[in-house]
């Protein structure tokens, strides 16, 4: 089994063979020799794996992230994307910026104030909208100067994390 792996901004190729509870894997990139690992991997609870690398023991937790997977090991956290090479081309997302910028809510919450109007010009760093959750208010600021193209949220509305609040141009 081959998979492309993206760990933050770093990408690599993973070849993996699973036999019983044993996983033999090789990880390779452009600049280094492949690194080989032989791990005993056992799913002890849903999404929780007991991993033995030789005698070294680790507990690894995998949960779905907004994109890819969040992996916890020994208090450290990684965000990892796993892509089947056969599907890789379908995953090539556009990275280009079309000059349009969407301001999304960083958390679920309630819109408490809208500080701009549709069509108004804004400066970089200007406050656009205030979202409140858990007694904490978060002011979304304009990442660059521009014009408010669309205003998706009204004061008092509930929003989810990742929901588009304001579109700037």
């Amino acid at each position: 089994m081959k998979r492309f792996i993206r760990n933050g901004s770093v990408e690599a190729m993973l070849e993996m063979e699973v036999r019983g509870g044993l996983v033999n894997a090789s990880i390779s990139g452009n600049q280094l020799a492949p690194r080989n690992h032989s791990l005993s991997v056992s799913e002890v609870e849903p999404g929780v794996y007991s991993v033995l690398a030789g005698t070294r023991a680790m507990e690894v937790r995998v949960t779905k992230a907004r994109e890819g997977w969040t992996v916890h090991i020994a208090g450290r956290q990684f965000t990892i994307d796993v892509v089947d090479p056969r599907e890789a081309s379908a995953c090539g997302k556009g990275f280009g910026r079309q000059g349009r910028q969407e301001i999304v809510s960083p958390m679920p919450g309630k819109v408490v104030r809208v500080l701009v109007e549709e069509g108004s010009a804004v400066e970089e760093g200007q406050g656009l909208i205030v979202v409140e959750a858990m007694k904490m208010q978060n002011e979304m600021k304009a990442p660059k100067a521009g014009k408010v193209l669309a205003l998706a949220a009204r004061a008092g509305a509930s929003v989810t994390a990742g929901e588009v609040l304001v579109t700037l141009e």
Partner: protein
Amino acid sequence: MRPPKFRKVLVANRGEIAVRVIRALRELGIASVAVYSDTDRDSLAVRMANEAVHLGAAASSESYLAIEKIIGAAQRTGAQAIHPGYGFLSENADFAEACERAGIVFIGPPAAAIRKLGSKTAARRLAIAAGAPVVPGVQKPVLDLDDARHIAAEISYPVILKAAAGGGGKGMRRVNTEGELEAGLRDASSEAERSFKSSEVYIEKLVTKPRHIEIQILGDRDGHVIHLGERECSLQRRHQKVVEECPSPVMLACPELRHAMGEAALRVARAAGYYNAGTCEFLVDEHRNFYFLEMNTRLQVEHPVTELVTGLDLVHWQLRIAAGESLALQQEDIHFRGSAIECRVYAEDPEQNYMPSPGKILGLKEPSGPGIRIDSGVYPGWTVPMDYDPLLAKLAVWAEDRPSAIRRMLRAVREYSVTGIQTNLRLFQEILEDTHFDAGLLHTGFLDEMMARRGRGEEQFEMHDIAAIVAAFHVARQQPQRTAPSAERTSLWRSAGRTEVMR
């Protein structure tokens, strides 16, 4: 000891403190009544109480702040007393009076004491009269910008603006120079207005690198008051406590300070006619001068560290005193054993400026074993609502001395796992491993300084590789491989030259 006289008590709160009080009630053989808002129907408190009464919508004004609904719930269920927890109505003198009028015991101090201490300016005057030292400043509300300019210049910058009705860091602004005063005053006033429905703000000298240390007191209706030592609460983010401990490291170096601060706290409590549990908050400067700040007329979030070190159960005592019992303890009966630390587990992301993270808890693994105490209000599968405070649980440890307690807490934090939402658990690991923390060099700016001085640790190949392998393994288990693999195509990533070695 024999259980106190109440047969049934209503808990007018939610989250971990409601669970804490319900546990105490169970231990004393008293029936418990929980109250809940729409979003809290499935809360742990409702699951654990003997009875539960619905209050209304999620908004606190419709539920946990709705005085008449809560008193109605107590009357309907026949509860003889109400425990207000902390926050919500716990420091509301009107509520305490409404309870009394309804013939229900308010488990806390008398309404008159709450009023005397409720405004910081009034509390400050009371403390000065009682002979407790206070931070230089002017104890009357600021009239306008000119007045503020005048006062600030007199006590000299830096100064701090504080909401008179405030608490929890709301309505507070540091002002370093006269140029910052106007904006600071505006922000503090409007935040105070929003949070406490009073824009009243006053000005104090800013004590630099202060420790925030508080003294727990306990008194009965006959005027017998003792103190249970201090809690060091200097580790704060956004003026809210994150890590607390007892003893304070400063007391280890200077044990006389506990006695002096304890006496000051008792003078304030006696002057206010206080009874039940309460806490005097102080700033302690680098020369170990201490200044009374305010008195919290309720149980504190961080009361477990005092319980662990003194062996007393504060909620049991609150109930006994409210039921009319005398406090059978003298000051010399209070012994301090070992060292306790508490970490407040919040649903927030310290990496994103403590962004709140409500949502569904998918997995929860709590530490246990020797010296661990957990006061939690959540369980796996529970959706942490966005409507209230982000406190999920309090993790406290006890050990024979401070270094052992730090290592035990580190062990516990590593055992703790919450998935589905972000928590600040990882931050504790950094704090506990910090050399300044280890040395006990604490002050209220500690956490911001620590965050500023942190560097990214050396990353190891192996951890990254294992994370990647287990993630791929997990994905493969969830989406079983297709039986007929199609011809492999070159990755867009690879062809674009973006495949690099994993660092």
